């Protein structure tokens, strides 16, 4: 048996800026603030940082960040692709680099002014010919339209209803209402508000869609050995995985045998294989929620229920505190902030430190996932 990732590294620092529809500072400045805060949280000097990982969609780069924060010589830097599908992969890449001796102190970050900046789908000049030529001319323009197609089919195949999607939106909103940092902290959601909300792409309404946020987050990864000397209780990376299934097509995954199984299934198989835990051992989950239907799909993919049972799983308060699987306990992308899922990683760390604003009692294990419906990634964290 060669080197293993299992518990070899830990997240020892987290940092973030405020979240808002509009922040005055630049993405670079926000990135530096989040990273410096994360290093301070860890009690590690910026000059010790020798690894960076972020998203291919990240607009700030290692060169600018490293010289701004005062990093030392950097020996590992990587980027993970596919938008929010890369969130957990940033930590996974750092964990792999540190576990194999390529680096010792890694920083992962995401800084994005998606709240005040342009919506990516409005760009008509830069469009990828594959697969945009097969979808955009017909008015399938936005991620909400692309996922709406799968959502409609999912409802048809399994009898899922809008109430199931509402269960997801409500759980995230309820947790945001407990989290002063959340954009929706003071805005409760009711079923009536949900059912009468304007459509974005039927069958998806406004509340099925994530927020548009300006903000930045970062975390610090070191070896388990080093973690013991850090300021905070270590949160171990127990397992990590990326997932690009055979014959997958990205968010417009309409062209294979079974479009209602996606990257979550692939990532999950690898994740559980490398873990001492199974779905039944997970105390709390941070599941990527750009759109509410991604939750039932991911619940199936990661094995919390059977095929087609994801919608029913959400019934009876299962996703609330005290339920079968408390979900997105900071409010998630739907109600805390949408920063390509990085806030799900930091909230997973808070749960295992015992410092969440919606703390699951004695939480010791947390699943964090990245964007479903695109090539994805996932982390199993444990205290």
């Amino acid at each position, binding site marked *: 048996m060669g080197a293993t990732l299992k518990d070899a590294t830990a997240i020892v620092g987290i940092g973030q800026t405020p979240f808002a529809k509009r922040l005055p500072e630049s993405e670079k400045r926000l990135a530096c603030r989040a990273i410096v805060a994360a290093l301070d949280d860890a009690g590690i000097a910026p000059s010790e940082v020798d690894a960076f990982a972020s998203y291919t969609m990240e607009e700030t780069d290692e060169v600018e960040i490293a010289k701004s924060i005062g990093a030392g010589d950097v020996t590992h830097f990587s980027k993970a692709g596919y938008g929010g599908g890369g969130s957990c992969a940033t930590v996974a890449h750092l964990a792999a680099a540190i576990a194999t001796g390529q680096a010792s102190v890694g920083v992962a970050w995401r800084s994005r002014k998606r709240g005040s900046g342009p*919506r990516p789908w*409005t760009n*008509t000049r830069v*469009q990828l*010919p*594959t*697969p*945009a*030529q*097969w*979808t*955009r*001319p*017909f*008015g*399938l*323009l*936005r991620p*909400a*339209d692309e996922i*709406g*197609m*799968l959502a*409609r*089919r999912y409802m*048809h195949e399994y009898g899922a209803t809008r109430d199931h999607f509402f269960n997801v939106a409500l759980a995230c909103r309820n947790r945001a209402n407990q989290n002063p940092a959340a954009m929706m902290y003071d805005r409760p959601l009711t079923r009536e508000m949900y059912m009468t909300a*304007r*459509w*974005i*792409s*039927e*069958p*998806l309404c406004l509340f099925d869609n994530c927020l548009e946020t300006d903000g930045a987050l970062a975390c610090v990864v070191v070896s388990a050995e080093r973690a013991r000397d850090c300021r905070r209780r270590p949160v171990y990376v127990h397992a990590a995985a990326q997932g690009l299934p055979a*014959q997958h*097509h990205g968010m*417009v995954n*309409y*062209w*294979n*045998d079974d479009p209602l199984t996606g990257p979550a299934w692939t990532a999950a198989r690898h994740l559980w294989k490398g873990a001492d835990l199974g779905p039944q051992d997970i105390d709390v989950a941070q599941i990527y929620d750009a759109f509410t239907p991604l939750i039932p799909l991911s619940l199936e993919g990661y094995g919390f229920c059977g095929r087609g049972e994801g919608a029913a799983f959400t019934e009876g308060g299962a996703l609330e505190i005290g339920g079968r699987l408390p979900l997105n306990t900071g409010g998630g992308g739907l109600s805390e902030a949408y920063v390509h899922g990085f806030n799900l990683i930091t909230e997973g760390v808070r749960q295992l430190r015992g410092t969440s604003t919606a703390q699951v009692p004695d939480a010791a294990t947390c699943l964090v996932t990245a964007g479903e419906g695109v090539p994805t990634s996932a982390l199993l964290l444990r205290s």
Partner: protein
Amino acid sequence: MRAERSPRGTTAGTESMTVRDAMNTSLPPATDTAPDPGADLLLPVPDDDGAPFWEYAARGELRVQTCSDCDEPRFPPRPCCPHCQSFTAHWQRMSGRGRIWSYVLPHPPLLPAYAAQAPYNAIIVELAEAPRIRLVGNLVAAPDAALNSVDPARLRIGAPVKAVFHALPGGPTVPRWVLERP
């Protein structure tokens, strides 16, 4: 699209490309002065592998890239067959019949040309001959009708549809779909 590129050869048994209805490539410009509901819709931007699809569509033909060695159809088009790795392919003509696999009704915010017709429908059609080949398109009342020309109440997963062809104002022709039982 690149007009100089001619469709690649077809295998024996597929319909001759010379027997076709060229109405879509010779469609005269609209003569009335009403704004065209299709003006400023996004045009397909073909890649090398996809270009023949659009060239056939301009001739009113729906064709799918098919492996010439193992006969498996594949979509979207790509350089080699994922089943047998053959680089030899042809474009198999489809009947144009299929069923609605899913659909959405987009509402604003949208690009202006689409917002002007919203809510409209976007549908996915699974082809009768190859149900795993699913094409995104629009269900319309007639080939040149607006994207919102079908009452949304008529949309239903499983509804049989057939392909028609519409020349976009900017030039390329796209397949669209009408109900088999309007």
